[in-house]
């Protein structure tokens, strides 16, 4: 769901939860066990494995969007209802469900285009 965007991909075969994984004030991944710990997510296209954790993400994406400390888009192998509900309220483009492991297909740091309506993600040369 959402609009098409272009940006830098932050890639890890790890989960995503706004409450569990992020320092939402500083705009970085903060959970010590997360593969992207310490990295800024602001304005990045997050390419991750699956939605984790609780229901807070449904509000938090909206709150993060209001402050501009928000990922540009979310791309996941699988999502849960919370992430879909949160992306709908927070107006964060989201794409999920692929025939391959998307975290293996997209190189970390690549420039990509995400088009949720076309259900596509492509690497920009």
């Amino acid at each position: 769901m959402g609009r098409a965007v272009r940006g830098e991909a932050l890639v890890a075969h790890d989960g995503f939860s706004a409450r569990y994984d992020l320092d939402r004030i500083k705009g970085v991944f903060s959970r010590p066990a997360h593969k992207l710990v310490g990295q800024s997510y602001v304005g990045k296209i997050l390419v991750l494995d699956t939605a984790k954790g609780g229901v807070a993400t449904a509000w938090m994406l909206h709150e993060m969007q209001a402050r501009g400390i928000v990922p540009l888009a979310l791309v996941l192998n699988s999502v849960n209802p919370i992430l879909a509900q949160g992306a709908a309220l927070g107006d964060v483009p989201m794409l999920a469900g692929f025939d391959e492991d998307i975290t293996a297909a997209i190189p970390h740091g690549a420039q990509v285009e995400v088009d949720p309506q076309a259900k596509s993600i492509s690497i920009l040369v």
Partner: protein
Amino acid sequence: MKLNDEEQDILAGKFGLLPQQALAHQKSVGEFFGAADFVPVTQAHIMADTESLGEAGVLWLEKLATITEGQRQVRVPTITDPRGTDFAKAATLGQTQAMLDLERRAIDAFVKLGVTMTDTCINYQTVQAPIAYEHVAYGDTGVVIYSNSVCAARSNFEGGPSALAAGITGRTPRYGFHLPEQRRATLRVVVDFTPGTLNEWGALGGVIGRLAGNYWAVPVIEGGEGVPKSDQLKHFGAAMASFGSTALFHWVGITPEARQLSDVASAGIPSHVVSKTDIDVLQKSYMVDDRVDVVVFSAPQLSLYELRDLAALCEGRRFTVPLLAVTSPQVKPDADRMGYTARIEDAGGSVLSGMCFYQSYAREIAEAKGWNRLATNSAKLVNILGGYGYRPMLASMESCVNAAVSGKLA
């Protein structure tokens, strides 16, 4: 998505702006998941602490609450998850006036929308448990997994905005665990021991949650002796939902949908064995230091029985580090009447009500109070608090109480 006549009227605005907005939001989520239609729900449960809402979320609620009275109320019983504070104990937590002001504004808006402020994540123990086959729209992952699994009710994880929408429209998109085929087991877990203490039940849930790994996985469990108690399955389910984003489990011979394995599982699904060693490894992975700055019992809120056990352990003790026990507004008056609160607080602890530790600005509390090394018997809490700058450690209720006395976790 197929809409009936009433739903088409709602979407056309014939019932007012609020139901129209709510149904449009639900429709976009339903279509994302390929829902065929809507299903009526009897109850909704909203997770909406102000730490998650922020100023932006509270303004959003306040805007909804300005809609004309009579056109803004929920149409099915709609209750709330823990709030971001216990106003009576805010100073104990080092919370600021700004946090409390935001909390009051959110409550005022919810009341105007007709929401019932129960402030609990154990509504299945304290308000009204759903019955089998009842379709509901619950927030709080612990509430959903318990209601789906132990009660055999039907719910997805409904985040705050979607749960409120369900309360307003009286329905939710029919996808996920509202569908019988989605409730079939996808992995089998044989447990070759029986957990004892609540932290062990939580750790077992955590291990199985990690194995399950995502929302759509449904573990069916076999093994263990006897019938677990409600508090044991509460910690088990809450941890599984936290570690795995899992929303439903079956336990053969225990939960209603799985009288036998073949009721919920097809032959050939992946199978795992979980031993006591696995939960010991999980618990030890958090034990980084034996010193403790604070002891917290929360997530889920404590039942009357848990407070009874805690009060007995606190009898005649004197704490040297803060001990917090968090319960629901329904349980707290009973704990007061039974003398449990007095016994815990006479030892130097605090009993808080209507909040949950991790939904109450845990990061800011850590900074204000200098709390870093935290002991708890909640596996869910240790999983969450790592991201909030704590070093959480998992131990039994008894060990945690001892740590509150000595300052060290033995």
